[in-house]
């Protein structure tokens, strides 16, 4: 290095020749400019401070003749100056050194907000030599790093090789680099802050969406629904195609949501598409996307639902409505995970979980030849059959209460559902399933001026008397959710737990129902201790609803 660069005034005079009257100065400033240029390039390359700091220090050590460069930043939590990075060549030393503001030479730079230039470091009384890398015979330059304000946030220090007349110029270079580093830190801090805020917001939104679509929002105490819950819990874990079947209005979409939001893909995209809503060719471009110019009006390339849902879940509603031509395309995606955009040649590979739903009789469609048999078997790997509301009449009271509380929240007023209304609801056959019940409840809420929904309001809101089934004289007790034939007619649900004729299991269940499944309360009703009732729940095999 000495041969290229004169470092003492004597050498300068010796080498003084050529066109430039002081060529060594030219050489020095050219190198300085070069170094500055490279540093600014390195700092602009990455937003990660640790990566770029390492590169910059390496560059300065090897080319810029500023040895053992060190960047310290103020830690906001502890108020200590912490070494972010220090150039390490063959020797490795601990980086766990920190300084208090005002402590040692580095600390003084921070507290005095001034640059410090020492021609010979061993002459400096404040020098602590904590790191043990700085040569005591050589000079030392330290510059504060500012972030736009007057308060420095860190220190940039290094050791030039010789204490010569270029020391001042070296110090100037150091100051420039320090301000460049300051800019880089400012930028990376801003970006980091924004990213953190966005991530926090995203996570909190994800959590709230997840809460909305959890099992808590699916009502069902009947055996049929318990089976559905078990199936959903099992299926959610696996990466399998699911077919949800059931009449219209039974909550197929709700189940699909629950599967997605309880699966490991919950944080990935979840897209829905109603296959019946679009004609065949539009459906294809919607699902697979299209290239630019694929058809009239395709002015730009468009990603399809499959590509958008990569890594996540795609819910295809009304899968029974698609044409056989389209079924074969769908089959290929299901089997291979491959497809082409409309008008494109390139094959795209995606990892998408498909949840399909239909209310059609697929077996009949297969028999008629409307539905491809291979696609039928492919979808039938995991089938969930939603029970109609008529098959789970025992859930009607709780469903009605849940829907009323939901409507009350929407309308922002108090709504109370009377038992008489529930008894009326229990006598309807509900061909439109839960959706019909929801509409009925909504109508009733609108019809009721004082927020009390009783029998009259419900029948006014359109439950025609002739559609009612069952005998009005002895309706099923609304709070006793056991099977109809087990309950003798005419018995009211009130005080069912006191009835000596009922077996013990029924009485415990009735008491639990009354107490809202709070065991301690139910124990009081039955004159038992909480331990006794817990024991009975266990030996009678009463399943308390979990999930």
């Amino acid at each position: 290095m000495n041969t290229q660069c004169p470092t003492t005034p004597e050498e300068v005079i010796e080498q003084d020749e050529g066109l430039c009257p002081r060529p060594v100065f030219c050489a020095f400033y050219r190198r300085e400019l070069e170094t500055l240029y490279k540093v600014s390039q390195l700092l602009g390359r990455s937003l990660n401070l640790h990566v770029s700091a390492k590169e910059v220090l390496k560059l300065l050590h090897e080319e810029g003749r500023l040895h053992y460069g060190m960047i310290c930043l103020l830690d906001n939590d502890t108020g200590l100056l912490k070494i972010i990075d220090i150039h390490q060549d063959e020797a490795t030393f601990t980086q766990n050194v920190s300084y208090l503001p005002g402590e040692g030479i580095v600390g003084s730079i921070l507290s005095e907000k001034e640059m410090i230039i020492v021609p010979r470091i061993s002459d400096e009384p404040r020098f602590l030599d904590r790191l043990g890398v700085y040569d005591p015979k050589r000079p030392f330059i330290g510059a504060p790093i500012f972030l736009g304000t007057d308060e420095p946030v860190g220190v940039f220090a290094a050791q030039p090789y010789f204490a010569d007349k270029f020391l001042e110029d070296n110090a100037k270079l150091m100051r420039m680099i320090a301000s460049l580093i300051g800019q880089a830190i400012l930028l990376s801090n801003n970006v980091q802050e924004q990213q953190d805020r966005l991530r926090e917001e995203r996570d909190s939104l994800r959590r709230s969406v997840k809460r909305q679509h959890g099992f808590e929002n699916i009502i069902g105490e009947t055996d049929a629904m318990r089976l559905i819950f078990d199936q959903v819990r099992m299926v959610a874990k696996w990466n399998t195609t699911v077919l949800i079947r059931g009449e219209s209005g039974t909550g197929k979409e709700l189940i699909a949501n629950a599967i997605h939001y309880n699966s490991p893909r919950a944080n990935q995209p979840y897209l829905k598409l109603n296959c019946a809503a679009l004609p065949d060719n539009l459906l294809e471009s919607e699902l697979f996307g299209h290239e630019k110019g694929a058809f009239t009006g395709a002015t730009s390339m468009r990603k399809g639902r499959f590509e958008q849902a990569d890594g996540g879940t795609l819910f295809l509603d009304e899968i029974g409505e698609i044409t056989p031509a389209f079924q074969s395309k769908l089959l290929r995606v299901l089997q291979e995970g491959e497809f082409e955009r409309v008008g494109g040649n390139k094959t795209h590979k995606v990892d998408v979980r498909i949840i399909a739903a239909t209310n059609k009789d697929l077996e009949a469609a297969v028999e008629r030849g409307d539905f491809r048999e291979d696609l039928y078997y492919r979808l039938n790997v995991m089938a969930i059959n939603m029970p109609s509301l008529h098959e789970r009449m025992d859930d009607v009271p709780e469903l009605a209460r849940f829907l009323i509380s939901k409507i009350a929240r929407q309308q922002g007023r108090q709504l109370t559902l009377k038992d008489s209304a529930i008894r009326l609801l229990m006598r309807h056959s509900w061909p439109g399933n839960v959706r019909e019940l929801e509409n009925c409840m909504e109508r009733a809420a609108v019809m009721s001026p004082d927020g009390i929904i009783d029998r009259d309001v419900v029948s006014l809101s359109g439950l025609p008397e002739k559609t009612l089934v069952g005998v009005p004289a002895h309706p099923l007790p609304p709070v006793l959710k056991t099977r109809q034939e087990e309950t003798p007619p005419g018995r009211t649900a009130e005080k069912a737990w006191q009835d000596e004729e009922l077996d013990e299991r029924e009485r415990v269940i009735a008491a639990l129902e009354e107490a809202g499944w709070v065991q301690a309360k139910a124990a009081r009703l039955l004159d038992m201790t909480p331990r006794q009732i817990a024991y009975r729940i266990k030996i009678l095999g009463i399943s308390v609803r979990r999930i």
Partner: protein
Amino acid sequence: MPEPLANRAHVPFYTAECASRCQLVEFQKQEYEKARLNAIRARMAEMEMEYRTREVIDGALYLLQKPLNVMTALSNNLQRGNCSKSASGCPPMGCALDEALDSGREAARTLRLSLPDEKDFLHAPVNINEAIRDCLIVSADRIDASGIEVDWHASSSLPMIFSDDIVIRVLLRIILDNAINAINEHGANSREVSVISRVGADHTVEVCIHDSGPGIARSARAKIFEPFYTAWKSRPHHAGMGLAIARQIVSDLHGDIDIRESVTGGSIVCINLPAC
């Protein structure tokens, strides 16, 4: 002589008797701690075994259910198609199918019966830092043997979480084990695990375990929580149940588990559990 007495007053062990008593107390404390950790270790092993058994049987049931479902669909279609036309009953293939279906259903039923009973856990407020500490001690041998440096940033003012004290330790242990496995895997750039426990957003407690292993491929990210899936290439063979169990525990506790890559390489597993 009052002076030497006053001098000796601030010596910690005033008399030989006192010193020996102090030593005894210290020794008893250590013994008690050892016994407590042994008890926790045993209960953790038991609990993990139970979770593992349930998860394996659940997984087997699912794998059995898949072909059964297809066979059911097939047999339904056969009955609709053929049997209605030919009056002489089902063709031999249909009969064989039905028999296979019956035996499959029977197998599924038997498996379901052998599922361990679901325990109702006693949920109580748990200090998660204590749980992390116990887990680190329990896994200390493994950590030492792998030559791994563990860095733990514990937030001092962490709210309690509502859980069973053994279940939460099993959960943390699985994730810690996973981090150690990742580092033992080929391609680890350094041998460090850092554990961070802090207050998360939305009134949650967040525990992040960061390893310096090779990281997880994007394509494997969705499958990693699936039962029977294992990404470890090095010996010994793993059953692939760890993260599946962890996910089950986290969802039982109404929490959230997420896996992502870190900027410095390796992967971060973050658990968010609702604070009480």
